């Protein structure tokens, strides 16, 4: 829990020596409380105070990283319950389950799907983030073999190793420890051994409980054994339990400062009915899971889930935007058409996608509307005739093209006269309203 300025003040030397650059210790304490200053500015602060303040300023949900390198997945550090309050921090990771009892070709098939899952949507790279390997066979040697094989085939993909058998865990973790996998499966009966493995290999530990009470007991015990990076499974399996436990956990951590449940959450969405599984995963995305385990990763399902994750995890205050500039689509010659749109990512990607589809080379002028769509930008006074005219003039495009025709979106046809008035020598043409009319429009010119 965050401390107030006065509470922090009590822990400072109270000498008002000004070495921290503040007139008094109290002034410095106030800055600390607002997180506008850092404690190391005070050279005389006691070790005891450092410890207390350090714990108090730690995020309510501990940051935990899965894997290494570019594809490492960051989790935790969330601070709110609702996305309109503040941007959710780390998008929830998708992991697909591979059972060590599956045939080699089945396993290879899933690993291939993961390796080929990356897509680009509205400028972001999205992919299946991890492979969840479960020791379904119960055989330690088999588990180790499958883990090694997958790590060799997909060296950069983060792994979650699922077993409750410490012997199987030790062998598998040892084989891939440098990849910082998550070891999932510490429970009441194996906690000591599993914590020992996680600690000696410096990896994070997944805690599998059967209720929130037993979860609390387990995380406290494991922390006491020296493992701090944990991921929690409360035992919730139905949607109802998942919503309840995830909500309780997030509230307890964020609003009550309950450190015992201040770790990322792993949820299990696997269902026989694939559409239901997609919905359970959606629940995980909207309601506080940090990892969602899936039984399969079909492309259509990935696209729907990636898109939902992107929607839920965007900043509600700042729409996704692209840079203001004149984009070349295809290889436009000097007489290729010039079109204008807003810099709202969604607008840009829809429009540029349609232009690409038409195969007609085009210059697309993207104007900064602070991330608002064409119509919203127009209504907000950011996509206006004078701004468009100014942008075209300043862009220097007049030196690059041989014509003076600007194509505007059909929804803002009302602007055409005013733009012509402000852009001497230019002709404005009104394009179709919806982007899906662009290909026909371009081809028929």
């Amino acid at each position, binding site marked *: 829990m965050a401390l107030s300025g006065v509470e922090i003040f009590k822990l400072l030397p109270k000498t008002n020596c000004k070495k921290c650059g503040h007139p008094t210790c109290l002034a410095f304490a106030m800055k600390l409380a607002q997180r506008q200053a850092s404690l190391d500015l005070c050279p005389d602060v006691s070790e005891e105070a450092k410890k207390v303040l350090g714990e108090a300023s730690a995020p309510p949900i501990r940051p935990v990283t899965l894997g290494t390198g570019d594809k490492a997945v960051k989790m935790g550090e969330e601070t709110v319950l*609702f*996305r*309109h309050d503040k941007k959710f921090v780390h998008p929830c990771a998708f992991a697909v389950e591979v059972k060590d009892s599956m045939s080699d070709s089945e396993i290879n098939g899933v690993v291939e799907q993961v390796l080929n899952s990356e*897509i680009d*949507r509205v400028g972001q790279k999205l992919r299946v983030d991890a492979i969840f390997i479960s020791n379904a066979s119960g055989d330690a040697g088999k588990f180790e073999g499958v883990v090694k094989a997958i790590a060799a085939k997909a060296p950069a993909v983060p792994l979650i190793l699922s077993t409750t058998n410490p012997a199987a865990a030790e062998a598998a973790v040892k084989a891939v420890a440098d990849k910082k996998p998550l070891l999932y499966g510490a429970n009441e009966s194996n906690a000591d051994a599993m914590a020992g493995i996680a600690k000696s290999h410096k990896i994070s530990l997944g805690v599998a409980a059967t*209720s*929130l*009470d037993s*979860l*609390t*007991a387990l995380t*406290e015990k494991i922390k006491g054994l020296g493992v701090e990076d944990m991921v929690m499974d409360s035992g919730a399996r*139905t*949607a*109802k339990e998942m*919503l*309840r436990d995830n*909500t*309780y956990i997030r*509230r*307890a951590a964020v*609003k*009550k400062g*309950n450190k*015992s*449940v201040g770790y990322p959450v792993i949820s299990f969405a696997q269902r026989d*009915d*694939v*559409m*239901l599984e*997609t*919905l*359970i995963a*959606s*629940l995980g*995305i*909207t*309601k506080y899971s940090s990892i969602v385990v899936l039984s399969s990763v*079909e*492309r*259509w*399902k*990935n*696209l*729907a*889930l990636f*898109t*939902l994750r*992107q*929607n*839920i995890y*965007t900043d*509600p205050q700042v729409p996704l935007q692209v840079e203001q500039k004149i984009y070349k689509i295809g290889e436009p010659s000097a007489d290729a058409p010039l079109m204008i749109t807003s810099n709202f990512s*969604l607008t840009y990607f*829809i429009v540029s996608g349609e232009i690409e*589809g038409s195969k007609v080379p085009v210059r697309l002028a993207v104007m900064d509307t602070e991330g608002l769509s064409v119509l919203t930008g127009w209504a907000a006074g950011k996509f206006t005739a004078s701004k468009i005219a100014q942008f075209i003039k300043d862009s220097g495009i007049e030196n690059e093209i041989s014509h003076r025709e600007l194509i505007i979106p059909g929804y803002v046809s009302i602007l055409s006269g005013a733009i012509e008035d402000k852009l001497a020598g230019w002709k404005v043409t009104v394009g179709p309203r919806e982007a*899906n009319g662009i290909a026909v429009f371009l081809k028929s010119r």
Partner: protein
Amino acid sequence: MAFTAPNETYSGKVYQVEAGTEKTFVIGGENVLPFHSFEGNVPNRPVIAYEVQDVPPEDWPDTVKKVYDGVSGNPVTWAKHCQDKLNAKAIALRLIGTHPDRENRSAEEAAATVKEVLAAINVPLIILGSNHIEKDTSVLVAAAEAAKGKNCFIGKALEENYKTIVAACLANNHKLIAMSQLDINLSKQLNILITQMGFDKEKLVTDPMCSALGYGLDYTYSVMERIRLAALTQNDVTMQTPMLGDIGMYAWKVKEASAPESELPIGGSLEPRGIAWETVTAGALMMAGAELLIMRHPESVKALEKFIDELM
């Protein structure tokens, strides 16, 4: 150590609204966030209504159009099919054919369609206009009269045209759907204007405007969450209406729901992709507070019902 459950107690409650006369449904009534039965009362399941149009669904993508081959030529056979074969709990009749840019059907024709459909079904009927501001006033007034005594949901009343539609619902004793454009303040203001006309606030359903997955869902999601929080935590009586998610119309309009795999290779197989687009849009908005959902594909509805079973 035992875990202390951080329960919330809310001061407000969502109104309960009932539709229909023979078979009926009730939505709302909860005093907690969606499906939070662990800390309060969630007396009713969300209700999914099947969408039916007054004209054939020529503009729907094949994936969902073909499901209604043979029945969708006529709103009566279409609605009966949904009720009898698909076990629809409600029918949402969209009078899209009245739009001046479409078939431009008259208010009288629309009223006749409403009568025929009502005569053929016994589940509650939701009557929707074409969202044309002027035309909807005459169409929905005629529809409300034609449906007198049937306790329908009628919409959508907008800030620009609510007066006549509210009056028609008052005169014919229907429930009203009020829509504003993705803004909590506009939504509140419209509810206030409507109740100032003497319309009972407990007969109102709010549509904060839907948007599809990937196409503004984030806005609808957050506006819904904020409306529901205002209802519960601030006990704001003007925001305590149940909410509508008009899912199918938005979800099936986007590229991901209709582009073949050859055009959208990253999207994989088209059929499940379209169904998933509708399903996920609905599932997410249900978590934000939508409790009446208008949908199109039976597989989407089936998946969502199973999801609700697991959540209740």
